[in-house]
């Protein structure tokens, strides 16, 4: 028991480390990037629609300037729905790790597991992934294998390397790299950051292009979905989320009218529900009331009375309008990413990251706050429409997801599953919360928001029945194969395994339900800790999983997780077709 099969040629997850250090190293270029991000959105903020063209240009220019130095590298970021982020190094068994096997040993122990998962992949799979996995450092450095850069003074890095539990290998090569010449590392680091800047500019420009098509009246949602899968720039996120979740229509001309109408509808709804004619549902009101101060207690934003009142109105109105489920704890968590994201629309560019700390009344009017509230309400409604079964009596949706997770883990990591059985660890003991709160309790807010970029791209329906009922967005459906029967198409099992997702038709057929994709994310999350869990008894396991070591997770960790989930989903979609 407990002895795991080992594979000798596990390759260290070079790119993983590489990305990690890359994202967390502060530098000149990094701050330049921030400035550019900022100026871009400031102008947008103040100048409105007409200025967008020039903003677009502004973001294009540096991109062109930089394009030559790193054009190859910006490519993978825009392809393949996150696959580029996956360093499937275990697949490329022969590639790296030949020079410093000794030092990599420690990492091997971490990657052994993953290696094992992918052993049943056929050659074609690895070939495809290899394409999209063209190592950035190699192209930047004439094919010489790169060590991760030394990130001087990077606290995050430091924390990461001290917590192997986060699933990442430590960076034993640091010393070696140091001795091999600091100068070249800084050069490399700089170059990488230029590449990062370049790709960011490129992304911002891409989003601008999609959101403001020059010769069309409709936003190409498939394209937007494809692009958003890999993350949405903060300046675009509010708009893109409203589109992806099916709240704002793709028809640009109708957007304002519809949003105004929905916001008015919300205001009317609130007025009615809080008027004298409406009898207050005391138990529901009371339950929400006691949960409001307990929602994100560590984020100052949710302690401001103004915000708490907004939350309470949103949750109460939603509960009243959805009597079959009513208010269920956890829904209070689910509204906050929307609320917070929509608030950033009103913040100065440099302050957007600080949305969790600033009282909204310092930067927006009450009317604007109510608009944020209304948008949050409608988007929450759209989100919960997809997972209604999670919150109705008996919570059958959650129980089914937990069961599916168990079956999935049995397939992808039978050792772990067996170990759980042996230790009497039941999935429901730790996974109930994962489902009920969509892993929100497991990650920091910024990571959750990044996750939702992908969730909304992967799963939401732009043409749900209610959107169609609006009479305003019937045309939306013509974009996709979901036209006639969104739900029917939704349930269709896609037989295509086109990971690159170049065609929107393929993308659409890839679209899965939120609860389905989420199970794959949970599975990817769980098996990340497999090496640790396998040595834990019942109590250690439950304690560990209740408080998983995710504090130091960065966006690239989340992106890796989502990509792994996507791969699992592609691999097991036939085996799990009965979930639907």
């Amino acid at each position, binding site marked *: 028991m407990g002895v795991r099969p080992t594979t000798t040629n596990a390759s260290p997850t070079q790119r993983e480390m590489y990305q990690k250090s890359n994202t967390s190293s502060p530098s000149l270029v990094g701050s330049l990037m921030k400035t550019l991000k900022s100026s871009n959105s400031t102008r947008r903020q103040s100048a409105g629609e007409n200025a967008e063209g020039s903003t677009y240009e502004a973001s294009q220019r540096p991109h062109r300037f930089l394009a030559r130095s790193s054009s190859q590298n910006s490519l993978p970021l825009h392809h393949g729905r996150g696959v580029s982020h996956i360093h499937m190094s275990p697949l490329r068994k022969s590639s790296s790790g030949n020079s410093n096997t000794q030092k990599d040993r420690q990492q091997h122990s971490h990657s052994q597991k993953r290696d094992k998962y992918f052993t049943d992949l056929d050659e074609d799979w690895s070939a495809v992934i290899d394409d999209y996995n063209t190592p950035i450092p190699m192209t930047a450095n004439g094919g010489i294998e790169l060590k991760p850069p030394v990130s001087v003074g990077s606290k995050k890095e430091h924390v990461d390397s001290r917590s192997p539990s986060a699933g990442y290998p430590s960076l034993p090569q640091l010393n070696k790299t140091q001795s091999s010449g600091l100068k070249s590392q800084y050069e490399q680091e700089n170059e990488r950051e230029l590449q990062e800047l370049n790709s960011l500019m490129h992304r911002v420009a891409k989003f601008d292009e999609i959101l403001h098509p020059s010769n069309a009246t409709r936003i190409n949602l498939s394209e937007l979905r494809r692009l958003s899968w890999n993350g949405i720039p903060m300046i675009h996120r509010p708009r893109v989320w409203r589109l992806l979740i099916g709240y704002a229509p793709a028809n640009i001309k109708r957007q304002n009218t519809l949003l105004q109408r929905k916001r008015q509808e919300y205001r009317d709804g609130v007025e009615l529900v809080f008027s004298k004619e409406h009898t207050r549902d005391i138990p529901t009101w009371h*339950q929400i009331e*006691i*949960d409001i*101060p*307990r*929602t*994100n*207690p560590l984020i100052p934003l949710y302690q401001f009375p103004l915000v708490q009142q907004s939350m309470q109105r949103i949750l109460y109105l939603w509960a009243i309008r959805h009597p079959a489920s*009513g208010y*269920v*704890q*956890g829904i*209070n968590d689910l509204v906050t990413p929307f609320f917070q994201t929509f608030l950033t629309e009103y913040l100065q560019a440099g302050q957007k990251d600080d949305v969790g700390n600033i009282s909204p009344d310092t930067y927006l009017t009450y009317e604007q706050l109510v608009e944020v509230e209304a948008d949050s309400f409608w988007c929450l409604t759209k989100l919960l429409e997809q997972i209604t*079964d999670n*919150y109705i*009596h*008996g*919570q*059958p*949706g959650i*129980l*089914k997801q937990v*069961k599916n997770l168990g079956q999935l883990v049995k397939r992808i990591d039978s050792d772990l599953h067996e170990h759980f059985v042996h230790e*009497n660890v*039941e*999935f*429901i*003991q730790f996974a*109930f*919360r994962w489902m*009920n*709160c969509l892993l929100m*309790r497991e990650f920091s807010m910024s990571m959750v928001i990044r996750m939702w970029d992908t969730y909304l791209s992967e799963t939401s329906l732009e043409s749900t029945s209610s959107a169609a009922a609006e009479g305003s967005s019937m045309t939306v459906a013509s974009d996709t194969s979901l036209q006639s029967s969104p739900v029917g198409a939704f349930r269709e099992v896609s037989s295509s395994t086109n990971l690159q997702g170049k065609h929107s038709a393929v993308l659409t057929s890839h679209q899965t339900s939120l609860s389905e994709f989420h199970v794959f994310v949970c599975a990817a999350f769980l098996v990340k800790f497999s090496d640790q869990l396998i040595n834990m008894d*019942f*109590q250690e396991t*439950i*304690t560990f999983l*209740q408080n998983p070591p995710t504090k130091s997770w960065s966006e690239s960790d989340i992106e890796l997780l989502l990509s792994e989930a996507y791969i699992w989903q592609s691999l097991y979609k036939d085996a799990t077709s*009965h979930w639907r």
Partner: protein
Amino acid sequence: MNTSVTSIKLVLLGEAAVGKSSIVLRFVSNDFAENKEPTIGAAFLTQRVNMGDHTIKFEIWDTAGQERFASLAPMYYRNAQAALVVYDVTKPQSFIKARHWVKELHEQASRDIVIALVGNKLDIIENGAERKVAREEAESLAQQEGLLFFETSAKTGSNVNDVFLGIGQKIPLKTAQNQAQDGGRGSSGLRINDDSRVDLRASNGQATSASGCNC
């Protein structure tokens, strides 16, 4: 009898926001947080207590209080040897809920389960707020139903440890007797045995039949 560790599986039940998680946090970490996120599903914690010549290890399942999660409760209390039924001394509604839990435990849980009725948030009363659940009322319920009874404040720590000590004192004797009488009966043995873990099947069966997926 040796001095080895005795494990007690204990479950906390009670209305939402009466302070179940705070009682456990006080007992396990001697800590308090004013606003704790609502518990979803259930949380698991352990704590060891030395009682004279032996050690008791509490394996605590702290359940979610909201009514919607109540269907999960049976799998947590089914094989528990002890239960804390918690209410808020300033919320009469929470005492009604506590009565329901006591009733349900007597009907559904192990026959030998030791139940402690716990009125929490005593500190609010001490700070001048109005008491809404009379001590006498709770005491009489405890007497009728054969429960231990405590009034606590997780915030100040008042009486919290006594609850667990009280349970610890009551259980080893009972379980020792049971061991002698009908040793292998399982559910209330000295050690937490394998099948005394949370049982999924009960609530799951309900779910699968509801969702119509029997695969």
